[in-house]
C-alpha cells in the first residue's frame, strides 16, 4: 500500500470514529426527549438501511456496470432471516426483554447471518450473470426479485400477512427483533456502527485489487479477460458481496420495523423502498461513487419525509401541493431530467476524502469564479 493511501485511510477512519462517538454521546443525552425519540431516531434507522441498500447496489450497477432490478429481493431475504432467527431464539427462551449481552450477541448473529444467506443467493444470481449481460441480466434479476417475493409469501412460517401469520401468536414487534421507540434509541449505536463499517468495507473493496478488476470488466470485458482477469469469478464475487450488504440492510429494516411484509420489497410500490427506487438513488448520486449513493439516499429520505410531513408543503400554491400528493411522479421527472442533462449523477465518480475534499472544493469554486469572470469579459467586449 502506498504511503499516501495509508495515511488517507488512517486520517479518514480517525475522523469518522470521532464523529461516530460524538453522535452516540449526543444520542445518549438527547435520547429521552420526545421528538428525538419519536422522529429523529426512526429516521436515522431508515437512512441507515437506505444508505446500505443504495451503496451495495452501486457495487453492481456503478462499478460492475450490470443493471440489477431485483436488489430488494436480497433485502427481503436478509429481513426475514434476521426476524425468524431472533424469533426462534426468543421462543427457545434465550432472552426475555431486549437487553443484556445475550440479546446483543443474538442481534449481531442475526445481522451477520442475514448477510450471509443473502450472499448465498447473490451467488445464485451471479451464475446467470456469467452468460448474460445488459438487458438480459436486468430481466433475470427482476425475475429473481419477484420469485423471492412470491416464495416468501408462500412459506408457511412467513406468510403473506407478514410474520404475524403462521408464527404462533407472536408478532415480530413484541418478541423478535422489532424495536419499539425506546429500543430504537438504545440500539442506535449498533445501527449506525453497522452502517459505517459496511460502507467502509465496500469502499475498501472498490479501492483494492478486486475493485480495479471489477471496474476493468465494466469498461471493457473482452480487454479485461485478455489481460488475465477471471471475469466470471469477479462477477459472482461482486454479486455476492453486494447481496451481503443488501442482506444486512434487510436485518436493519427488520430491527426498526414492527412487522414485515413482502410488499415492502417489491419491484415497485408507493414508498421509496423498492427495487426501482434504489436504482433511482444510485443514478442520482452517481454510478460509481459510494459517496454519491450515501448522500443521495439521505437526500431522498429527507425529501420524501418532508413532502409527506413537512409543514412548508401546506404553504405552497394548490397546484404544486396536488403534484406533491404523488411524490413518485416528481421523482420520475427528476430521474429523467438527470439522465438527460447530467447522466453521471451528482457526484459522477467522485469519492469523499478528508484529505482531498477541501482542496477540491476550493478548486471547484475558483474554476466557477474564473468562468464567470471570463464570461463577463466577453460580454464587455461585445
Amino acid at each position, binding site marked *: 500500500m502506498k504511503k499516501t493511501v495509508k495515511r488517507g485511510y488512517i486520517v479518514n477512519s480517525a475522523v469518522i470514529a470521532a464523529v461516530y462517538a460524538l453522535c452516540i454521546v449526543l444520542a445518549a443525552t438527547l435520547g429521552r426527549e420526545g421528538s428525538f425519540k419519536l422522529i429523529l431516531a426512526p429516521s436515522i434507522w431508515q437512512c441507515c438501511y437506505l444508505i446500505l441498500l443504495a451503496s451495495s447496489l452501486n457495487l453492481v450497477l456503478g462499478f460492475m456496470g450490470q443493471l440489477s432490478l431485483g436488489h430488494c429481493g436480497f433485502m427481503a431475504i436478509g429481513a426475514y432471516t434476521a426476524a425468524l432467527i431472533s424469533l426462534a431464539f426468543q421462543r427457545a427462551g434465550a432472552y426475555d426483554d431486549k437487553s443484556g449481552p445475550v440479546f446483543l450477541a443474538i442481534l449481531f448473529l442475526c445481522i451477520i447471518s442475514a448477510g450471509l444467506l443473502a450472499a448465498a443467493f447473490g451467488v445464485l444470481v451471479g451464475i446467470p450473470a456469467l452468460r448474460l449481460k445488459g438487458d438480459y441480466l436486468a430481466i433475470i434479476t427482476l425475475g*429473481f426479485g419477484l420469485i423471492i417475493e412470491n416464495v416468501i409469501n408462500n412459506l408457511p412460517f412467513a406468510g403473506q400477512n407478514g410474520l404475524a401469520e403462521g408464527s404462533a401468536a407472536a408478532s415480530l414487534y413484541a418478541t423478535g427483533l422489532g424495536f419499539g421507540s425506546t429500543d430504537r434509541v438504545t440500539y442506535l449505536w449498533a445501527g449506525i456502527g453497522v452502517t459505517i463499517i459496511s460502507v467502509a468495507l465496500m469502499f475498501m473493496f472498490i479501492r483494492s485489487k478486486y475493485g480495479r478488476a471489477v471496474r476493468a470488466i465494466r469498461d471493457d470485458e473482452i480487454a479485461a479477460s485478455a489481460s488475465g482477469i477471471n471475469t466470471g469469478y469477479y462477477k459472482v464475487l461482486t454479486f455476492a458481496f453486494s447481496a451481503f450488504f443488501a442482506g444486512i440492510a434487510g436485518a436493519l429494516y427488520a430491527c426498526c420495523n414492527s412487522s414485515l411484509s413482502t410488499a415492502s420489497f417489491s419491484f415497485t410500490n408507493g414508498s421509496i423502498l423498492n427495487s426501482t427506487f434504489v436504482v433511482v438513488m444510485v443514478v442520482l448520486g452517481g454510478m460509481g461513487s459510494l459517496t454519491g449513493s450515501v448522500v443521495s439516499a439521505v437526500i431522498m429520505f429527507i425529501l420524501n419525509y418532508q413532502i409527506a410531513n413537512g409543514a412548508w408543503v401546506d404553504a405552497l400554491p394548490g397546484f404544486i401541493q396536488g403534484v406533491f400528493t404523488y411524490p413518485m411522479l416528481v421523482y420520475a421527472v427528476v430521474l429523467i431530467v438527470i439522465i438527460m442533462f447530467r447522466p453521471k449523477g451528482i457526484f459522477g465518480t467522485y469519492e469523499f476524502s478528508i484529505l482531498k475534499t477541501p482542496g477540491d472544493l476550493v478548486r471547484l469554486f475558483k474554476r466557477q469564479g474564473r468562468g464567470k469572470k471570463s464570461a463577463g469579459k466577453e460580454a464587455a467586449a461585445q
Partner: protein
Amino acid sequence: MGEFLQTLFVGLRLGSVYALIALGYTMVYGIVRLINFAHGDFIMVGGYTLIFTVPLMTAAGMPAWLAVVIAIAVCALVGVLVELIAYRPVRRKGTNMTALITAVAMSLFLENLAQAIPAIGPNPIIAGQFFASGGFRVAGVTLDYITTYTIVVSAVVMLLLYVFTQKTKMGRAMRCVSEDKSAAILMGISVNKTVLSTFAIGSGLSAIAALMYVAQYPKVYTTMGSLLGLKAFVAAVAGGIGIVPGAMLGGVVIGLVESFTTSYINSSLTDTFVFLILIIVLLIKPAGILGKNVGEKV
C-alpha cells in the same frame, strides 16, 4: 380431459394477450435495442381510454368494442410522444444503461401521472361488458365467446403484422433498420421515421391487448400494466427478443405455463414458475428459443 381442455383454452387465451403485448416489446427492441419498460403502461392507457370511450360508443349506437379504434389511436400517440420526449434525446447522448433507466423512469411517470389525473384516481374502475356472454360447447367443455375472440383476433393481428413486416415497404424498412442502422441510412431510409412508426404500431397492439384483457378481467387500475407487461416481456425474451414469431411462441408458452401451474400445482406460485421458465430458457439458450447466438466481435 375436460379440465385439461379448459386449462388449455385458458392458457391459449392468456398466451394470445401476452403475445400481443410481447410483439410491442420485441419490435421496439429489435429496432432501437431498448427494453421499453413503459410498454406495460400503454396497456393501462388503452384500458382507461376504453373505459371513457365505451359510453360514447354505445350512445352513438355502435357496438362497445369499436372503442378499441380510439384506444389504438391514443396508445399510438402516447407511444410516439414517449419516444420523442424521453427516449430519443437520451439515446442520442447516453449509453444503453441510461436509456434503460429512462425507460424505467418513464414507466413510473406514466403510472403516477394516471393516478394524479382526477378522473382516474388511485382506485380501480370496473369496466362494462364488451362482448356478449355465453359460448359454445366443444368436446364437453364450454368455450366462451371472449376466449374465442381473443385467440382469433390475436392470430389475425399477428398474421397481418407478419405480412406487413415481410411485404410492405415500411415493414422492410423496419427490418432493415434493425439489422444495420448505418446501412439503412445509406439506402435512403429515414431511421427516425421508421422508429416512430415502430413505436406507434407496438403501442397500438397494446390497445388491442387491453381490450382483450379487460373483456376477461373487467377491472382497470393504474398499475395493471406492470405485472402484465413484465410477463409479456418474459414471453418476448423467452421466444427470442427482436424476432416477431418468437414473441408469438413465447407468449403462448408463458400463457400455457401460467394456466397449467394454476390448475395443477398452486395458483399462488404462478409468477415463480413463469420466471423460472425464463431463467431456464436463458441459461440453455441465451438468445431465446428462436434466437440465434451471435458471437461477439472484438
